[in-house]
């Protein structure tokens, strides 16, 4: 994480009152990102803080999950008149409602129609909405009066969190890879390996398209033959794709780590790739901080991913699944339709590895056979082969790595029974 970025806490999503807060600062001690990357965690002394927001959103729904309606909920001081004004993702007015709250709870169930009677249920044109809460009354008669603008018989307006549309289909695919991973820093001719890599990537890229599902392929500039700016800009494109809520499926091949993936170039011993390096100050990686703030758990624009396969070392070890909005547990298919799924997530799955993976040169063909078998089986079988079925078949027939190693180090979180078009 660079020095100018960070993760905010939205205190208005917590109840008012006294709370304890502790800052834990994690500093990476090496430019080499892998499971052995040393980190130092600096904790400060826990501090008691008082949260006193005039308007809070303690039981907010991230998503419009009930097809026909969405309920805005907020809490404030008693005896207020309230107005909720809804704006769309392009900041255009959509609709409003007014009311009065005697106990401080504000609630309005919106029917998803705009002021002019048009339905606003197309996730492509309306990925989400931002409500503005205006309250009028004696706003000074409570502990929350410390908030700016809170006076007797006064009015204040505050934006609520985003209310995001659930994906209505499987969403777009993004297939990315570090383009010169097999060639960077090596003296022999490894272009043949890049050809095999591209064959495998193309198989994954084409799989959604056979079902008319939009799919984008992006070759991430990797290695010494590019400038640092080229590499950083290339990753900026990946970040832009990931922020776009129309993309909900992501495959990445390249160097990985516990809480991020990416790198600038290989580290080699002779002709063998033994690690990678992310240069200081460069942006050739994506970490959990970016993903939490912009993808799976964003305050505005949260769009949990449907499917993520981070095909690099150690990617299942840390916080990457949760950062994409995918539970870091094997939930099974039934959890998604159960009452335990309080966030109303649609079926989703994360595939990654909890160790280094077999990347030796002699294994390159089988490595990519594994990926091609998995995606071909999962995406084409009429019998709706599930994700686990595709991965198991690939493990048992590709010849890549060993059955115990793959079974042990392959991590499938979320719904391992997910279907390709579910």
């Amino acid at each position: 994480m660079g020095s100018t970025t960070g993760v905010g806490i939205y205190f208005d999503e917590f109840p008012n009152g006294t709370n304890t807060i502790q800052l834990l600062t994690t500093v990476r001690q090496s430019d080499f990102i892998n499971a052995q990357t040393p980190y130092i965690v600096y904790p400060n002394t826990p501090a008691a803080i008082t949260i006193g927001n005039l308007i809070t959103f303690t039981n907010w729904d991230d998503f419009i999950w009930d097809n026909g309606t969405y309920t805005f909920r907020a809490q404030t001081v008693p005896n207020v008149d309230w107005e909720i004004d809804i704006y769309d993702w392009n900041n255009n007015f959509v609709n409003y409602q007014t009311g009065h709250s005697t106990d401080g709870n504000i609630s309005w169930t919106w029917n998803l129609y705009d002021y002019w009677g048009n339905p606003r249920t197309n996730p492509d044109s309306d990925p989400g909405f931002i409500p503005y809460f205006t309250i009028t009354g004696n706003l000074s008669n409570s502990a929350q009066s410390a908030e700016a603008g809170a006076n007797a018989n006064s009015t204040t307006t505050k934006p609520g969190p985003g209310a995001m549309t659930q994906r209505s289909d499987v969403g777009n695919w993004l297939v990315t890879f570090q383009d010169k991973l097999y060639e960077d820093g090596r003296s022999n001719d490894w272009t043949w390996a890049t050809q095999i890599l591209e064959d495998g990537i193309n198989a994954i890229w084409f799989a959604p398209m056979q079902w008319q599902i939009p799919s984008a392929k992006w070759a991430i500039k990797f290695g010494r033959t590019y400038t640092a700016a080229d590499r950083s800009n290339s990753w900026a494109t990946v970040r832009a794709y990931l922020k776009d809520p129309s993309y909900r499926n992501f495959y990445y091949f390249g160097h990985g780590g516990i809480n991020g993936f990416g790198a600038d170039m290989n580290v080699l011993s002779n002709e063998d790739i033994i690690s990678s390096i992310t240069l200081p100050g460069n942006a050739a990686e994506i970490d959990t901080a970016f993903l939490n703030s912009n993808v799976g758990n964003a305050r505005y624009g949260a769009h949990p991913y449907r499917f993520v396969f981070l095909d690099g070392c150690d990617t299942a070890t840390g916080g990457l699944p949760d950062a994409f909005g995918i539970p870091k547990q094997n939930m099974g298919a039934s959890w998604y339709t159960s009452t335990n799924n309080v966030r109303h997530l649609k079926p989703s799955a994360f595939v990654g590895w909890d160790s280094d993976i077999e990347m030796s040169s002699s294994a390159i063909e089988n490595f990519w056979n594994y990926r091609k078998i998995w995606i071909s089986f999962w995406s084409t079988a009429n019998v709706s082969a599930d994700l686990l079925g595709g991965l198991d078949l690939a493990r048992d027939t590709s010849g890549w790595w060993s059955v115990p190693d793959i079974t042990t180090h392959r991590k499938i979180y979320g719904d391992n029974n997910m279907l390709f078009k579910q």
Partner: protein
Amino acid sequence: MILELGGASAFIQVTAQYSNAVLVAVLPYFTDVAKKLDLPVPIPITQADIAKVDIWPGPGAPGASILLKNNWSFGFLQGYVYAVQNTHDKVIFDSEPTYGPIKITAEDTVKTARDTLRKLGIAPEDVFSDFEPKVTPPNQIGTNVTYPYQVEWFDEMGSRTVDMRIDPHTGKLDRLYLHHFNLERPPPKIDVVPPPEDTGHDSFSSMIPPHPSPEYALKLIPIMLKAIDAYGGKLSLPITRPLTTNNLAKIEVYNNGGWPHCEIWLTNGWRFIYRHTMVNGYDTPDRLGKRGPMHIKDFAGKWNLTTNQAIEVVKAALAKLDYPTNNVHMDFEPTVIIPAGEFKKIIPRYMFEWYYKDGSGHQTSRIEAEVNADNGKLESLFYDDKAYWDSRPPIDVPISVKN
């Protein structure tokens, strides 16, 4: 003896002739399963009943999956019907709830699942259904049922062998999915030979991946056999010495960036790995972690060795091989893999991994081993270290000749 030089694509091109031939070959398998399970589909299933066909182009072929016009689907691969599914089931496929009381108990569901396997002639030991299944009950929200019963069995490493979904209102099977080496059968004969995959370029067919030359491989084979003799002698492995080509089933030789990576299979099921200029390890035919059929009874035993005692078995073997001690890195806790779930009680096997990384986190040494904790036998061993990566076998021809 089979000699393979480099790898190859596992995929084929599906032509119209091949597709037709496969479909003709697999329909009797689907009909047979439909009869045994008394499924509501036409008997026999003919091409006229099919709405959609997918022919599998990958390993395990011939394979196909079909969707019937009445929305039942079937899948065939590796010589067996791996899937049967009622795609009418909106709960599974569209997350739409069903309504009404749940009439079926979990016990009934497991009985239905076991009966289904029995009707198909699948031996419990082939899919481990003689052990306890994992049963996920249906989700019920008010009067809505949002997910059916799910019954699953798993193998000794925790990998799924059976997945059945059963309607909680009627007790009928909605989905059956099977997967294990034990189920594989000889495939039906297909008279049409499909061409290899067309990738749009000639990376596989023209040896753009620099596959080893036959001349290099033929000079390497006696060097490897001599090295295996010496290696086997040091460990007193129960294999013939000296090895001759009569003892070899298959040799795979890869160009691993200017140096050889080889896998040598003996006719008695042993496998050796040779890289650079040394034997890196071996697998016995009794290794648990191999790709292939397995039955619990063949691996059952008692845990007679503790973890530390099993580690000593590995250390003792490496000591006999007499590597420089500063190149052997096992002075830290290994990753320990043991059988999953209840199988860990009856299959006494340890799999160890020592992946050594230097101060910068670069992996420079690797030891893997499987120890039979019942009899102390080292079923598998692999050792490699960066220290050996500069050496090359004394062969006076290039490893590859690029055309």
